[in-house]
């Protein structure tokens, strides 16, 4: 059944009727630390998790660094300086989340799924029913497959207990605590996040998603993710769900480290939609060894301020890096996102594609770095930034930096800023689409190079989110 429909048809069919999101009930907390950040709190976090001594030391050292490091003096310093570090709960342990019941899903949506012939498991996902019910069986078989292949996929806390050696060998090697103020903060108080280890030569066929994990220490505010792809392996990891993620505290500061060993391939996809009070200050960095390939596919919606510049260090010859990102900034929001490509070896290549939309006075910035070290010959890099402004009050800036210390390189850079054109709107409206539908269609089209890289269910969610973000914005 499903195979008869093209992806495009599926995507836009579901969107047509689908107006249902994730709604999680208020969580109960099993444990909540006091506000503020002290040595005692950091020690308490580590003790509660029964961590080895080296991790406690690591945390405490990171805390010192955090306290000493000044705030970044660039970016939206006004917003940054508003963060009240003393007023945050640094450790919150949630009780089991309640999943939504399939019975609660409206009939109209079930009918749409019927008509499209979407498989059972996927329907539940699309409707926002968490993985706890019958679909449990599906995920169980996925987990068994992974186990057979020798793939380790755990939450970080469990990984530290069960695979201490691998964790210790790699943890913090890509992003040292001292990298920046927020990586230091994360290193001091991290909790949750994913750990993935893929053995040499193993290709993981399905994208790994956090909710496949058995013992889910759920995504927290200071999650810590580490992915290690051994030589010749492949893995695609997807983080985040597109639900508006409400959090009691307003700071989300994750650290994500990827290690792509020779000839391996890691793709890391994120779609995040934070509520509008959240500071989303994330450090993401990958190292790509010889002939390895790393891709960051990064979607940023929501939040008050996002600062996120996924980086790839191309360490070995012929390594390839790509960052494909979108950002959407509405009223009172600033999406400061970008990418860093560091070419340290010959014949390395990189591509950066950044697309942003600002509306209702929202602000997007592209901040990027392409750096080529001496001796990294025959490097090719291309950077493309497209910004779309929905109205006169919105703003978009680009801060591209190139540090090229080698002659034998090919670097391309292209940046465009455009407005949603009256003629495009009129063309679509002359076919019967309302102004809102027409605007949404133009915006979806603008993001299409990104959307088409997503698995179907995420693409559906993203389109729906964009539609929600466009609602009431025109007319």
């Amino acid at each position, binding site marked *: 059944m499903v195979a*008869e*429909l*093209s992806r*495009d*048809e599926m*995507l*836009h*069919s579901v969107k*047509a*009727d689908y107006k249902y999101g994730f709604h999680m009930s208020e969580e109960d907390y099993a444990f909540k630390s006091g506000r503020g950040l002290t040595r005692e709190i950091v020690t308490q976090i580590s003790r509660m998790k029964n961590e080895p001594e080296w991790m406690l030391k690591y945390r405490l050292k990171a805390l010192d660094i955090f306290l000493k490091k000044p705030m970044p003096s660039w970016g939206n310093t006004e917003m940054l300086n508003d963060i009240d570090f003393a007023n945050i709960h640094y450790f919150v342990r949630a009780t089991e989340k309640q999943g939504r019941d399939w019975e609660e899903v409206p009939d109209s949506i079930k009918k749409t799924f019927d*008509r*499209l012939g979407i498989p059972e498991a996927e329907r539940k996902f699309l409707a926002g029913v968490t993985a706890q019910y019958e679909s449990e069986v599906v995920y169980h078989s996925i987990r068994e497959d992974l186990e057979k292949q020798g793939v380790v996929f755990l939450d970080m806390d469990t990984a530290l207990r069960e695979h201490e050696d691998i964790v210790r060998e790699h943890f913090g090697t890509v992003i040292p605590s001292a990298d920046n103020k927020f990586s230091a903060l994360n290193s001091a108080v991290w909790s949750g996040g994913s750990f993935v280890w893929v053995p040499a030569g193993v290709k993981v066929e399905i994208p790994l998603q956090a909710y496949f994990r058995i013992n889910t220490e759920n995504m927290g505010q200071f999650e810590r993710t580490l992915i290690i792809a051994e030589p010749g392996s492949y893995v695609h990891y997807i983080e985040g769900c597109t639900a508006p993620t409400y959090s009691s505290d307003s700071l989300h500061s994750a650290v994500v480290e990827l290690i792509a060993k020779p000839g391996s391939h890691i793709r890391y996809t994120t779609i995040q939609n934070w509520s509008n009070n959240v500071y989303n200050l994330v450090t993401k960095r990958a190292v790509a060894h010889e002939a390895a390939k790393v891709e960051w596919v990064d979607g940023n919606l929501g939040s008050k301020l996002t600062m996120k510049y996924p980086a790839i260090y191309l360490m070995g010859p012929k390594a390839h890096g790509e960052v494909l990102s979108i950002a959407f900034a509405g009223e009172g929001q600033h999406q400061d996102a970008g990418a860093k490509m560091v070419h340290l070896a010959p014949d390395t290549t990189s591509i950066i594609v950044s697309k942003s939309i600002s509306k209702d006075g929202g602000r997007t910035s592209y901040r990027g770095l392409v750096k080529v070290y001496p001796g990294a010959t025959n490097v090719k890099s291309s950077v493309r930034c497209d910004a779309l402004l929905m109205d006169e009050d919105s703003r978009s800036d680009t801060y591209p930096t190139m540090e090229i210390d080698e002659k034998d390189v090919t670097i391309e850079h292209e940046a465009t800023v455009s407005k949603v*054109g*009256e*003629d*495009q709107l*009129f*063309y*679509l*409206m*002359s*076919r*019967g*689409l*309302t*102004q809102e*539908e*027409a605007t949404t*269609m*133009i915006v*979806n*089209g*603008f*993001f*299409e*190079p990104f959307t088409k890289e997503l698995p179907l269910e995420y693409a559906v969610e993203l389109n729906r989110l964009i539609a929600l973000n466009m609602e009431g914005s025109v007319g």
Partner: protein
Amino acid sequence: MTSKTPILQIKNLHVEVEGKEILKGVNLTVNAGEVHALMGRNGSGKSTLSYTLMGHPRYTVTSGSVEYRGQDLLAMSADERARHGMYLAFQYPVAIPGVSVSNFLRATVKARRGGDIPVKEFRKELKECMAKLGVRDEFLSRYVNDGFSGGEKKRLEILQMAMLKPEMALLDETDSGLDIDALRTVAEGINALHNKDNAVLLITHYQRMLDYVAPGFVHVMQGGQIVKSGGSELALELEAQGYDWVAKEFASSGAN
């Protein structure tokens, strides 16, 4: 033939663009079952009329009225007009990057018909229309008018018309840029859609198109007015003699 049903009644229509008056009193009535051709020199105001009728926000009506099947057309937004059965095949169709033709067509058909149609039913109908108009399958996955050749754009305009089944179709130079075979296919497409309940206003510079789609009425626009109307023979006269004589005749009639 005695009782005619008017679809479009344009009375003394004056239109400004960016403070400049372009249409200076257009009068025209189009009845159900009729095909009208609108001709005239470059810049005489033909596209301005078609945009105005479709509701482009850049064109301001300063006086006059337009009734569409008894309703005040000018009170409707562009999308309302479309949902009520107005259609404009653009002289210069607009590209919508990232939006596939099939997704676009489905959204517009849904808007026009006021409800979703099952994917398979829609696809069947679309495939039939495409076959008739000689539109290739690969079109569907391309982005709307993005990188299309001039002729491809015009074909897509006609494909949309075939799917949307308008009651009043305005075709603004749909024949320009078509090769000879495409012209015939497109003309056949227009003829196939035309029936006693709908009407077509064909803006064109060439007799070629009118050889296939025979208009019962031909109008000449000049300086923002319709200055001469006649039957299909008028188009042949224009083809043979150009517009000068119309202009002279109009000037000596003292009208303005």
